[in-house]
């Protein structure tokens, strides 16, 4: 009893701060969750190696920013330019790695109509290969990202300070998620993706090239995953094993929102981010990951279709 009441007492004080931090993390989870959900939509397959897409995105922007920023202190204009460049390079490299994954680890199996188990194992293998390979090449310790901006308090809300970092995450996240949502809902490519998700065979009868659509789906998910990797790495740096836990959480978020459902992924990501952040005040911070995995296990056991349900290929 006293345990909880004492935590409630501090919660009022910390609530807003934790909420802001939670939402920021939530956007990152959401962007990664999109990748899981899209690939799941078209292939009915959990892309286990998506965590490595996330990680390589971070590394790509690490190298770019090392080159661009170095030891300088960027001014406001430079900050924006660098930021956009880092987002683009993180996304592009993420998309390329996702494409590579599809070509090497999935397509040969798809050609052969291999059992699902083979896909999953291949994905696990690809994931382990990639992250250890990066670990070997770039060292196994955190590499400091040269932040493209100076982190200051921008404004204060209910006593909680909102840093530049959060603003960046918010803007990039919202832009990406809205753009993707529109792309999938309205463009021809999006229609192709949704058609493949709902009924691949019929989609091919309509003239949709399934191979290409699947590759593009991987790339779209990879783009967002790579960008998320960059955003995530700003305070933690880039390190080879950085993808595993956040990606597993993002997967939980995707399941929570209803896997296959784009908006569900966003909702799930935000909920998970906030719940996790607030759990620091309630439970010991050491158990924060247990909270995330607990949510995953519970959702799968109780309501495997998630909050919004499995609405595959649904745009809205």
């Amino acid at each position: 009893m006293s345990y909880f009441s004492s935590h409630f007492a501090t919660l009022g004080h910390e609530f807003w701060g934790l909420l802001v931090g939670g939402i920021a993390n939530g956007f990152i989870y959401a962007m990664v969750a999109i990748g899981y959900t899209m690939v799941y939509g078209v292939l009915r397959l959990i892309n286990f190696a998506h965590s490595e897409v996330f990680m390589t995105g971070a590394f790509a922007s690490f190298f770019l920013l090392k080159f661009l920023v170095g030891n300088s202190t960027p001014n406001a204009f430079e900050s924006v330019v660098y930021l956009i460049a880092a987002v683009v390079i993180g996304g592009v490299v993420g998309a390329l790695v996702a494409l590579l994954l599809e070509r090497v680890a999935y397509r040969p199996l798809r050609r052969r109509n291999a059992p699902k188990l083979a896909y999953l194992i291949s994905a696990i293998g690809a994931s382990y290969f990639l992250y250890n390979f990066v670990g070997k090449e770039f060292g196994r310790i955190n590499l400091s990202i040269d932040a493209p901006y100076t982190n200051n308090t921008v404004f204060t809300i209910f006593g909680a300070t909102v840093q530049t970092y959060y603003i960046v995450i918010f803007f990039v996240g919202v832009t990406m998620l809205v753009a993707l949502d529109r792309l999938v809902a309205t463009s021809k490519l999006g229609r192709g993706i949704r058609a493949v998700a709902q009924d691949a065979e019929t989609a091919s009868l309509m003239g949709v090239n399934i191979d290409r659509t699947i590759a593009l789906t991987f790339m779209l998910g990879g783009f967002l995953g790579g960008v998320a990797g960059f955003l995530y790495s700003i305070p933690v740096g880039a390190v080879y094993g950085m993808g595993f836990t956040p990606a597993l959480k993002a997967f939980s978020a995707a399941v929570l929102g209803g896997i296959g459902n784009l908006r569900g992924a966003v909702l799930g990501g935000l909920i998970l981010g906030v719940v996790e952040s607030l759990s620091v005040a309630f439970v010991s911070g050491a158990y924060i990951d247990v909270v995330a995995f607990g949510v995953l296990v519970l959702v799968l056991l109780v309501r495997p279709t998630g909050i919004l349900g499995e609405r595959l290929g649904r745009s809205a």
Partner: protein
Amino acid sequence: MKTFFQNPRVQRSGRTALILLLIIVMTGPEGSGTQPTAGFTGSFGNHMSFFGLFYPQRWVVFLLLTLIVVGLTSLVKMAHRWWIERQRAGNNAVARVAKTLAATKQRARHRSTRLSLYAVALAFALYFPHLVTDQSWQTLVVQDVLVYLLLALGLNVVTGFAGLLDLGYVAFYAIGAYTTAWVTGSLPTPPPFGVHWNTFVAIPVAIVFAMLCGVLLGIPTLRLRGDYLAIVTLGFGEIVYLFINNSYGITGGSTGTNQIPFLSFHLGPIKYLWGLIPEPYYYLTLAFVVIFLLAFSSLEHSRVGRSWVAIREDEVAAESLGIHPLKYKVMAFAIGAASAGFAGVVTASQTLFVTPPTFTISFSINILVLVIFGGMGSIFGVVLGGLVVQGFVAYLTHSPPSIYNAADLYMYLGALLVVMMIYRPAGLFPSRRRRREVSQVEAGTAPDTLQVEIGAHRVQEDV
């Protein structure tokens, strides 16, 4: 220009060149945080011994190796063609040899031949400690090979026999190890009845405990299939890991415990202490490996084993024949957990120490690699795969660090998994049945029962 790249020969050569480059980099030196490109530049520029003959740059070595291998394979191919032609021509000597070879192959299928093969293998295993003079190798064989073999045999029951992909398998291993620590009174939690039990007592307790956890975990989760089961078990494994890592008052937290006693034997006048000499551990573990091996192989060819196959191949049909799928799946979980639990006891009582980092997800993956490499569902394959992969890993891991970085292990294992799935999805030595299953699913003549299904059965209206 485009047609040049579309030429399959060009594409194939290009692909090969890329893979070769990758291998050169993979086996090259490490990069570091301060010099992230050192790995790449060193991979090509560094020098490397070519069979001790000369010392060229690394890429030269690989190029030479490629040429040698290509040359050798074409030689072998030519010989093979010659062999077949001679055989067809009825050349006596060649035909006789061919016949003998075929007969040997046939005989290998024969029961008595197989048994004598096993006997030879067992004899070798029993003699092994006398072959290696360096005792640390015995330790390594127990810790890095036999324990892994035990785990692989157990996971084979779950994944190979029952077709359930369990990524949290390491949790049962952790439960076994921590139970040992608990029973012997080495944890902050007081041991059962306040007695510091002999480590041998931990064996049954750990096995039973692990099985119990297998049942408890299995009942709710085994309703899920395929990827979802994999992810939930992975989540479970992480939760167990985080629990033992954080519960200072119960498990000792991230520092674990180093108070576990050596195995010892005090029965009246007979006293024996398994001490620093690893040989007794080797024999004890070997004995258990053999016991599990025999038990699991008779299980495979029993009613239970057949029921697993039935569920794995077509759960709906199996259920319609009166097989209770959940019961059999949970049982597979429990049996797999038992062998992991025992492996936990071995590890804990030989290293005298348990700590959470041993029990990460990577460990589960490592075991999975053994099962898949050898051939899921085939005990022979799993044992052979385990010996080959783990033997090589143990050898490399404990070679001087300048030669091989233990941290690269998962890079190789990961690549191995992908390559296996592309070329030999049923493993190197699969059971015939498993090989058939894979090829049937691929041909579309059998349903893929691991197809992801969310929640209850998808509605399938009659058409």
